[in-house]
């Protein structure tokens, strides 16, 4: 069923919750475990704005198993306005509509279904800002 491994990162997947460093103010996404030597409260949860620009993009025409029905689909690296780069699909968008630096915003969508008896995995995608 793969329940736990999707459940435990639900805040990041559903609302783009990353982390902010309490001292330096650095924002990171995705959230990461504490490193050896870091104080337990070094990083606090931080919800990112979901706004960013397309760093680069491609169209997946030979999809991995589980994504066959979606192909062809747009995939992008999005530079979020807080700094982190994130990998996600683009949605609500024609295949020939995307350009580098295009402004985009986060939306929550179905990522994939894990078979007839499995979970439906939801998470972030990005769409053009209109």
């Amino acid at each position, binding site marked *: 069923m793969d329940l736990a491994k999707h459940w435990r990162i639900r805040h990041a997947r559903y609302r783009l919750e990353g982390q902010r460093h309490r001292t330096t103010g650095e924002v990171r996404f995705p959230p990461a475990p504490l490193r050896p030597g870091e104080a337990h409260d070094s990083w606090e949860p931080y919800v990112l704005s979901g706004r960013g620009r397309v760093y680069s993009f491609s169209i997946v025409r*030979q999809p991995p198993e*589980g994504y066959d029905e979606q192909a062809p689909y747009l995939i992008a690296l999005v530079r979020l306005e807080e700094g982190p780069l994130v990998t996600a699909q683009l949605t609500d968008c024609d295949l020939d509509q995307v350009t580098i630096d295009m402004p985009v915003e986060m939306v929550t969508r179905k990522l*994939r279904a894990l078979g007839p008896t499995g979970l439906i995995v939801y998470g972030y995608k990005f769409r053009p800002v209109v």
Partner: protein
Amino acid sequence: MRNVYIVGTGATPVGEHWDRSAASLAVEALAAALGDIPASRVGALYVASALNGSLEVQSQVGPMVATAAGISGIEAVSIEAGTASGGVALRQACLAVASGIVDLVAVVGVEKTTDVLDARRERALALAGDAEWEAIHGVTTTALWAMLMRRYMHNYGYGIEDFAPFPVNAHANGVANPNAMYRFAITADKVRSAPMVAEPLGLLDCSTAADGAAALLIASEGLARDVSAAPVCVAASAVATDTLALHSRHDPLWLSAVAHSTATALRAARMTHRDIQVLDVTDPHGITAALVLEAGGFAERGAAVALARDGAITPKGALPLATGGGCKARGDAVGANGIYQVVELVAQLRGQAGAAQVAGASVALAQCIGGIGATAATHILTME
């Protein structure tokens, strides 16, 4: 630490071996590497395989190959580092021999990719990236390279057609390699008119995953002179890593594991870039080769594609690349690629590379990377 030598090489043709198992391919390559040396003299076995577990074929590939080779009982282990598996396994073999604990070690790279349909293979290959933050979004390794290619074109002003010299060179060289999957030349026009796989990457700028096995015998200096007329010295061996996910990197167009492992290897061999006469790198796409050459210090940033356009990567150029056909024409045997590279470069150093021979080559560099460069393994080989 003792010096380490390659005293035997072997490989099967890369291709769709419907009638062969991973074990049978591995043993054919190992037997060819052994030649007249009895398998019983092998002290340890390192097996490189990227997908054998994730394609639900078999785990514990080390004992599997040892058993098939009739040497069950010896120390045997499998090593997985995506498409860098071969190079990482070779490094473990070098460390084992250099330590003085064993005198003769076999390294076998084996991959069996054609027993599953394309979509399952794409899923397994995508696990070389970050499963939770990349693969779950349906991104493939090819699409990650495609995004880097588009950004590279944007930054440096190249067009898709500028990358054609990489697959054209690979195919031209593959003709001379009896183990290559595609032994025919292609033109830049054909590359340009091929259908898209992941824009801007077209079909003829994408390697084909296939089956194959390649093997090396690694020996100490004392033994090397006894068992080989033309031992090749492993002058340096280095492995470095980078973040698993591409998006975690400060500059996605800079492969820092490649930079670090290349610099470490050159320093260990007391060489500069100019000493390297022929090289082989992980090159499933032109953009991959370009970024590797730049991070490795063989080209200025943004200049590798121009160097290829000017002919530098052909066997007669200053940076001969993919002389055995590379991933594109040899065929992409994934975890075994790092061993195929060394088999082909040993042939170069022995002057046995036929039409793709680099005249007088005595120093070669082999480098393989896993995924988008999360692992990089570099070896420098010399003929004394």
